[in-house]
């Protein structure tokens, strides 16, 4: 009898100790998953955060990670379309294939910007469902976190309260972050900018910056001399003050263009991990604001 009780207790302890295996496509989602999942989850990120999110180099070593995972967190909106679905299809894990029960699109509920009116490759490499670079928009953090918490609660209902408590703590930190960012970024309101690729839409929307053009003539298309000449002219007319690019984009073009226009080229981060000091999603938002202010005024806030 005693041995049965022991076996039962051991099994219960093991069950109680069960952790959700989580793979996140990008470190932003991995950071939120750790904050919300706490000790009930094991989280890894496939991308390091330094890459172009559309062009993460695929390694076969990703497959065993995906094979064992319970949940795959994805930005969705085709942000990872060039690499993640193919990996998920190969991972011998039906529940995390695109559209599967454990493939979690973290954009659900976000006010999606830039939904194309015309779908045609003559418009470049389009995202039919809208701009997927919402992870650098401070206003999107709450929705991302809610989607992650919901996925964890569904996967491990016995720890639902634990996830809800962690979520409350995280929401508090987000709630206190947004007004501070808004206040510190007041000087960005109305500032005309040029982007490299259409990836700063959510950031611009939060701070009120106006994007008047892109270095890429169409998304994903290399800039041509003629396009840059026209862009220079437009930038001068619109009094562009910042050219915004990120660490995965060729810095030579924005720096040269900024010198010709007489404005500043600013390197922001497109994800957590883009720079060694950016280790959390909140840190990502603070870093990007610092870079923008530094570009605008030459002084850090």
């Amino acid at each position, binding site marked *: 009898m005693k041995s049965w009780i022991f076996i039962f207790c051991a099994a219960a302890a093991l069950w109680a100790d069960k952790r959700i295996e989580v793979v996140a496509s990008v470190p932003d989602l991995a950071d939120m998953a750790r904050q919300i999942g706490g000790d009930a989850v094991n989280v890894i990120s496939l991308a390091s955060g330094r890459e172009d999110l559309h*062009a993460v180099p695929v*390694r076969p070593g990703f497959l065993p990670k995906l094979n064992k995972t319970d949940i795959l967190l994805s930005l969705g909106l085709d942000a990872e379309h060039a690499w993640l679905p193919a990996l998920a*299809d190969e991972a011998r894990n039906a529940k995390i294939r695109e559209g599967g029960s454990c493939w979690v699109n973290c954009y659900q509920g976000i006010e999606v910007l830039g939904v194309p009116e015309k779908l045609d490759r003559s418009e470049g490499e389009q995202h039919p469902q809208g701009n997927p670079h919402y992870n650098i928009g401070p206003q999107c953090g709450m929705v991302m976190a809610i989607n992650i918490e919901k996925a964890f609660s569904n996967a491990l209902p016995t720890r639902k309260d634990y996830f809800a408590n962690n979520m409350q703590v995280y929401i508090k930190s987000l709630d206190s972050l947004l007004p501070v960012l808004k206040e510190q970024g007041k000087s960005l309101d109305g500032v005309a900018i040029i982007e490299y690729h259409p990836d700063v839409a959510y950031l611009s929307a939060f701070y009120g910056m106006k994007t008047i053009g892109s270095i890429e003539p169409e998304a994903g298309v290399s800039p041509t001399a003629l396009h840059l000449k026209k862009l220079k002219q437009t930038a001068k007319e619109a009094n562009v003050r910042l050219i915004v690019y990120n660490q*995965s984009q060729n810095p030579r073009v924005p720096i040269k263009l900024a010198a010709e226009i007489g404005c500043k080229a600013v390197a922001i981060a497109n994800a957590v991990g883009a720079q060694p000091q950016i280790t959390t999603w909140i840190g990502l938002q603070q870093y990007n604001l610092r870079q923008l202010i530094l570009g605008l005024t030459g002084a850090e806030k």
Partner: protein
Amino acid sequence: MIMNSSRFVICILLMFLLLYELSSGAESAASRGWQNPDIGLTLDGVIDVHDAEGSWKSQGITLRGAELIVSANIDPYAFLLGNVLISEGGAELHEAFAEFPFLPFNLKAKAGLMLANFGHWNRFHVHAMPFTSEPRIYREYADGLLALKGIELSWMMPFDHYIEITLSAYNRIQGHSHDVDPSCGSTSVTSKTADQIAEEIGAEKHGTHWHGSDGEILYEEDLLALAEEETSTEPVYISGNCRPEGFAYGGRITTTFEMGPQFSIDIGASGIYQNEYKRTQKTELNGLTYSKILYGADITVFWHPLTSNKYHNLQAGAEMLGSYEGFERSAGNLVYEDYYNRIGLFSWFAWRQSQLWQIGAFGEFFQSNDYFRNQKKRYGGFATLNITHYQYVRLEYSRYEYPGVIDGVNRLMLQYDATIGYHTHGRQR
């Protein structure tokens, strides 16, 4: 009157029902699109110039193929893909397979006509290779890339380290190529004869096969059969042998090693064995059959700097291919079987210089797959202008040195490739 009223009400109800049906029908018609498969078309055209036999010659612009791929999930368990290559000589089925990617115990199965899971380059569509001309080791030992009918069962081992093992059974070992060789197929007596037969019947050569006047695909053995096999007494390849010893059996093991997130190395080893690969035509040998083993090993190194992967990256690799095959030899009145073991090595690198430009080089050394064991070599370089992700222009120079067949042929190829619609090569790299 009561009757009329009730009829009126029924008529109104019927009209509402009809309208409801029509509107819901319109809705389902509008949403039927989701059931359509993914469709993509890739155009691959070349201008091929070479100086074989001492003078420069070209057939002008050649459409090597327009590859039409249709694919979709069949249901939650399986995926179906069809690939039809349309060329100037007609259309032919290149791939048609069902894949079951989520079987228990980390298994995956594939059945149908497929690019065999063999070696590094065999699974690539030609337009997805970083160079224009196909590696010659495949042509020498397998008559081209292996598009085979059969079944493959792959198992990803349940470890943290990636190791995948594939076991396969195919109808036979049969290569296929659309790349024309400046040596003009004069590597064996049988193909010369097939060329002559083809000329007689007006068939047009296309890589390792011919297109008949009605557009039908003809292989060397088909042409020989057309000539009632009187022109050659060489052993013939065996088709349609459904006994277990007639099938080709193969396998491949692959793994990868990562040295940080930027450097990785893929390693693989493959083999295919067919016991009854070809059969003698000499009555005195009483239906003797000859076997063939095709084997290989490959290593590919990747350097993808994370922050600038789009602008700079390096891939380099080497692939060894070997063939152990039975041949029929005559010495005076004596006819006997003789097995030759021949090997070759293809190595290459491709360096991405910018988002637009990629350059690279290749070289291969291989023994001729015959008694003479001539040392053949081929080397060259290429530069690719990636206009966008969906179209590129490539210039390739290569030099062929095939002692005993051709000496010092220079070849220039200008290639244009463009893709519309849905097109993906999975996690291929």
